[in-house]
């Protein structure tokens, strides 16, 4: 029985002081210099040192904090008189001399097969503790514990928790055909979800994070399935004649928008999570696919070639007020609305591939985020600060993460085969 005992303490008061005296926005305002964030080498609080533990802890924290945005991360150790990690147990002077603004100190100990990880974030300039947490679990869960503290660091420094404990569902051909998998957002701990030997496409998380929908050819036709991740129970919820594709879970968790061709060309419909048809939203003679809900559920973006080539359109959730969003580029597809509601990510065909753009919902501020290789399937992190996507850069299709402005691109795929269709889970 491997159970994480997430017993922790959160020292709220220093964080509140930090917020009041300095302000989150001031810390992360654009144009201000990056904060120097030092990650101290983990120390053994009790028992023997373990270099594998240290590596897991530092690697996970460094990956998270590097992607995070407001920080310039260093893991270079400084010479300290003691190895203490608690307030009063060590001296800030060498860290100040090294130019650190913030400092993460961690310590681990092992007992009865369980590892306990203690994490502390300090404001070096003020010699002040900002956050402290303690986690325990198996050694395999050390990375997860570190990600949990990363989420907390984001909360303390920016006012909103990070998405670093999230999972990414994706499609991979590593077994020879397209199956659906799940992994940590940084590519670790891959778990296979489908085993049907068929073609499986377009996973999307329910707002609870407990269920996935996807299209599968397992019974021949491209039908829509819903699967409970924790029981493995799978239900075929739309097997209507023709295609049942690009399912997108509504923010209310009860409805699903998808594209179906049962009445002619592919059109956008809304069904209940059990598959009952609730509404047909589009009535064109063209191809309409890839619906994407606004975070409040009041509108949908979708792709239509009703004017010739595929372009992104927006409509109200009842199908009214259809208008074109993208006006530049001949071929624009795969829209996804930011969970903050302000911007929509999509892909534009350029040359022999695609590039990822974001655009305001009124069509202004069209911005290209990627240039390297061919990049598709943008999906937002639940806090809207990051985007995961698939990219072909010379070799196989691999998954990446980046900040919402296109900076900080980092590959997260580690398996063989082509990985595509990533989707970032809601917070668990």
């Amino acid at each position, binding site marked *: 029985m*491997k*159970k*994480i*005992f*997430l*017993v*922790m*303490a*959160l*020292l709220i008061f220093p964080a509140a002081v930090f917020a009041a005296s300095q302000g989150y926005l001031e810390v992360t305002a654009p144009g201000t210099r990056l904060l120097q964030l030092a990650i101290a080498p983990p120390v053994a609080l009790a028992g023997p040192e373990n270099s594998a533990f240290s590596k897991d802890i530092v690697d996970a924290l460094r990956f998270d904090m590097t992607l995070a945005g407001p920080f310039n991360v260093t893991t270079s150790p400084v010479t300290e008189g003691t190895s203490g990690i608690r*307030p009063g*147990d060590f001296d800030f002077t060498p860290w100040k001399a090294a130019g650190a603004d913030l400092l993460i100190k961690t310590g681990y100990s092992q007992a009865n097969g369980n590892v306990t990880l203690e994490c502390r974030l300090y404001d070096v300039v003020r010699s002040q503790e900002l956050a*402290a947490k*303690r986690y325990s679990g198996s050694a395999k*869960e050390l990375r*997860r514990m570190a990600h949990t503290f990363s989420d907390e660091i984001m909360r303390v420094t920016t006012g909103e928790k990070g998405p670093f404990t999230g999972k990414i569902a994706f499609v991979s051909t590593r077994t020879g055909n397209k199956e659906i998998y*799940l992994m940590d957002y940084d590519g670790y701990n891959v*778990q296979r*979800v*489908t*085993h*049907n*030997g*068929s*073609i499986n*496409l377009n996973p999307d998380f329910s707002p609870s*994070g*407990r269920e996935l929908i996807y299209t599968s050819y*397992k*019974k021949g*036709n*491209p039908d829509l399935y819903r699967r409970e*991740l*924790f*029981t*493995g129970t*799978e239900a075929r919820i739309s097997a209507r004649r*023709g*295609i049942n*594709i*690009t399912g997108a879970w509504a923010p209310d968790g009860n409805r699903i928008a998808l*594209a179906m*061709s049962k009445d002619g*060309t*592919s059109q956008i419909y809304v069904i209940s999570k059990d598959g009952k048809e609730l509404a047909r939203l589009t009535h064109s003679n063209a*191809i*309409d*696919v890839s619906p994407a809900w606004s975070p409040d559920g009041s509108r949908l973006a979708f*792709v239509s*070639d009703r004017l010739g*080539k*595929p372009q992104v359109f927006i409509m109200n959730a009842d199908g009214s007020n259809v208008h074109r969003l993208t006006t530049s580029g001949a*071929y624009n*597809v*795969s829209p996804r609305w930011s969970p903050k509601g302000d911007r929509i990510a999509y*892909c534009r065909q350029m040359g*022999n591939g*695609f590039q990822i753009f974001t655009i305001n919902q009124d069509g202004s501020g069209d911005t290209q985020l990627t240039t390297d290789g061919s990049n*598709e399937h943008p999906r937002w992190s639940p806090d809207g600060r990051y985007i995961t996507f698939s990219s072909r850069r010379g070799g196989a299709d691999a998954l990446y993460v980046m900040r919402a402005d296109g900076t900080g691109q980092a590959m997260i795929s580690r398996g063989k085969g082509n990985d595509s269709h990533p989707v970032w889970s809601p917070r*668990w």
Partner: protein
Amino acid sequence: MKRHVAGGFLVAGCMMLVAGGCAKEQVVNKDEGLAPTAAVAPAAPAKKEVVKETVQQTPVKESAVKEEAKPVSQQEELRSALEKIYFDFDSSRLTEADRAILAKDAGFMKKDAAVKVRIEGNCDERGSDEYNLALGQKRAEAARNYLVTMGVATDRLSVISYGKEKPADPGHDEAAWVKNRRDEFVVLQ
């Protein structure tokens, strides 16, 4: 100092249980529940079904008795007679050449009213995979509609789109793309 902090942890931990314990427990439960998911049973039956289909098909063919020999050979004939049709980039419009091929195909199909045909729509790799699934469907339906106007009964024709999931040529150039923008005709038992 150390003891004091440890005490603080306990107190704060208890407060968390009262204030936000729910969220934390969920994290724990979910993380734990996931492990079994990978090896869950439900997927297994699906695999069997796939196997069954192919297994069933083979015996039928092999055990065909003399009387059935004729239709089988006719099916074989039809199988080789039905030609693929090809499309322009991002188009489901039937060209003159396509129509000529479909007229011929319709003629073959009308010879044996028992035979059913599945039309498979496919695309090249350049479009988006999501849009291409819909485009492949449109291509398959374009062929079906034309065959119906040529007198083939609707219930003998089924359509499916594979988008860009099943390229005929795995290449990444125009020579491959031309071959991949196609409808294939599969004779069913």
